């Protein structure tokens, strides 16, 4: 990977989620040289961990398949996985970027035949499933992982699992001596698309995420419903593996709250409406969803999705920020306490499972940016002259749904191209 050639007419895209992939592909399909770097072992980011999209209930992996194919076919685009930006210097049209590449311990020879995973024994929490399941110490991040190449968990290096894996590989693809590399790139413009992470639910103490097994987050719920997920698509609750049929969705879990995230994360309401759909789809009449909300924010033309969910017989809406969740020790059911503010009704409702519609927090903390950019109070990158040729794309720029993130990423591609073209123009 150290033979990456880049010039001040190259565009660097940081982050291989849907925003980064989009920005990179759109620019590359305009004939520009693009380098896309991604921290994890494969592309796809947060959306590849979703089961379905609202409001169409279509599958994110469908779009990922298209984007993966575009990526494989496009020779203007080069990908570096397990790579992070360590430092950036220079100015618009001429940045030098230090990229730290962590060892994968598996080289290009890998055919993804899976023999290494067969022999490795140690298992670790599967990050891709938010720790809801286990994965081997040699693994493919997920079935659609691109690059389709295995990874060795650094924790097995030095153990006989590592040697077993090496021996199992017929293609000399496992290189246990791989070291962390640092690569210097010269680029003309940078598109920052490091996206978002779910807010730490344990910090929302009244909801007991850290104390009550059957309180999970919306992103975890997506994994439960996904056939590729740890339960093969069954809604099994953590405490006892029983099917959860009576599910509560708590809105603004971390969002719109000065004790946590000041901003509205925009996607959570729609996500919960979608989750109510999952429950309805799986159990029909037997299922029951209750959505506790402050305002339902089904913005613009997808509002009719909200109305469709309202029409479902087994979905209840309660205008209330839940005050606290306690566990019924008998059966592990979470009990929600609060007041329905539409006409003042107290409730103590018992559910099988609570799904916290968890807020969206920028992945990179404001103080950890390796590059000088204007960050607003919410931690998002704000468009500003002083950012030079560093352009935010997707959820680095704001709390956005997929559609808006992609739209925004496409715009950022043009902004980068503007810089590249003026450099090219200047150099004739």
């Amino acid at each position, binding site marked *: 990977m150290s033979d990456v050639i880049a010039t001040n007419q190259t565009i660097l895209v940081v982050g291989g989620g849907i925003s980064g992939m989009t920005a990179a592909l759109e620019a590359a399909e305009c004939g520009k040289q693009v380098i896309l770097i991604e921290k994890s072992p494969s592309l796809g980011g947060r959306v590849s961990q979703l089961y379905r999209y609202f409001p169409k209930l279509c599958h994110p992996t469908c779009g990922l398949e298209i984007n993966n194919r575009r990526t494989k076919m496009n020779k203007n685009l080069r990908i570096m996985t397990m790579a992070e930006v360590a430092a950036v210097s220079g100015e618009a049209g001429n940045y030098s970027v230090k990229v730290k590449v962590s060892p994968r311990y598996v080289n290009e020879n890998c055919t993804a035949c899976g023999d290494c995973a067969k022999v490795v024994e140690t298992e670790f929490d599967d990050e891709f499933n938010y720790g809801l399941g286990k994965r081997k110490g040699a693994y493919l991040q997920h079935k659609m992982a691109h690059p389709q190449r295995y990874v060795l968990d650094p924790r097995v290096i030095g153990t006989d699992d590592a040697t077993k894996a090496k021996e199992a590989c017929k293609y000399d693809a496992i290189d246990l001596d791989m070291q962390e590399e640092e690569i210097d790139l010269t680029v003309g413009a940078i598109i920052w698309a490091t996206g978002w992470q779910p807010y730490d639910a344990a910090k929302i*103490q*009244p909801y*007991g995420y850290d104390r009550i097994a059957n309180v999970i987050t919306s992103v975890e719920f997506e994994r439960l419903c996904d056939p590729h997920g740890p339960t093969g698509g069954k809604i099994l609750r953590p405490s006892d593996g029983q099917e959860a049929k009576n599910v509560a969705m708590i809105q603004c879990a971390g969002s719109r709250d000065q004790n946590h995230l000041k901003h509205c994360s925009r996607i959570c309401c729609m996500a919960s409406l979608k989750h109510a759909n999952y429950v309805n789809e799986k159990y029909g009449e037997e299922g029951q969803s209750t959505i506790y909300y402050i305002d339902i924010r089904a913005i613009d033309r997808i509002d009719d999705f909200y109305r469709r969910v309202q029409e479902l017989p087994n979905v209840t809406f309660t205008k209330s920020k839940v005050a606290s969740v306690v566990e019924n020790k008998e059966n592990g059911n979470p009990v929600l306490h609060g007041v329905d503010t539409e006409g003042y009704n107290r409730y103590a409702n018992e559910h099988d499972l609570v799904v916290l519609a968890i807020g969206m927090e920028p992945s990179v903390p404001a103080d950890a940016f390796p590059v000088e950019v204007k960050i607003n109070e919410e931690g998002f990158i704000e468009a500003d002259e002083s950012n030079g040729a560093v352009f935010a794309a997707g959820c680095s720029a704001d709390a956005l749904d997929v559609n808006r993130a992609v739209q925004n990423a496409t715009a950022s591609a043009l902004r980068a191209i503007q810089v590249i073209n003026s450099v090219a123009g200047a150099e004739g």
Partner: protein
Amino acid sequence: MAKKEYSFYPGCSSQKGASAANYMVSVDAMCEELDVQLNEIPDWNCCAASIGYAGGGELPRLAMSARNLALSEQANPGQDVVATCAACWLATKETQERLHEDDGLMEETNQALSAAGLNVKADQNVRHMVEVLIEDFGYDELGKHVKRPLEGIKIAGYVGCQTNRPFGIDGESYENPKYLDKLVETMGAEPIESYEKKVQCCGGALAFSEQDKSHELIKGIIEAAYDGGADMIVTPCPLCQANVELYQDHINAKYNTKFKMPVVYYSTLMSVAYGKDAKQAGLNGQIIKAKQLEEIAGK
């Protein structure tokens, strides 16, 4: 460790013959062991607590706490103000903070204080005794002084409200603070970590005016301690202690329960663990006797 000095605000209930007199006794014993010198604020007055509001408006109440701060600044300059009573700590700390963030209020308050020739800067830290223990000593250090580990005693840490909210102790969570459990553990006893009502309100001052409503809450607090298998409850708050200990007969009568749950102060636990005798530990201040502690203290 060198002697530590603090400007001390005992508060009304800690006075001789007052409802938390035993608290004071045990605090003295504990501080003696830890080589802490408490310099009482001369001629301190009541903090107006959180129930003073009907008669007293905002400013008069602030002024009362401000008077204590002013006196402390005079007598014990540079020393942190330390309170043992939750309400005292809360009212004083709130006053200190509000005066700081609001210049207008600071000015008005000093106008009022000038009526007695006083003036306040309100630049001292206002701390609860528990903070002193955790922050200035730390669990390890506190553990070193244990002479008689409280082995085999199961204790529910009842934090209550005002030593927890809104300021919190040691940055711990409002819903599930663990410092009492840690203290209990440090003293060699067994904390009831799953104790569900550790931050449940006991009715506070309204235990006087709204007895039935409060007793309902108190019942829950004691019940949960029994459910958790506790031998006794420990608390850092005089009002919590009083409310939870005193009304058990009434509650038994009303709900025909058989509560007899000792409610002790952390300082009592520590004094016993530190080898003090029952009297020094304030154990004879218990209305419901904490027999296990007495046994250990008796040794």
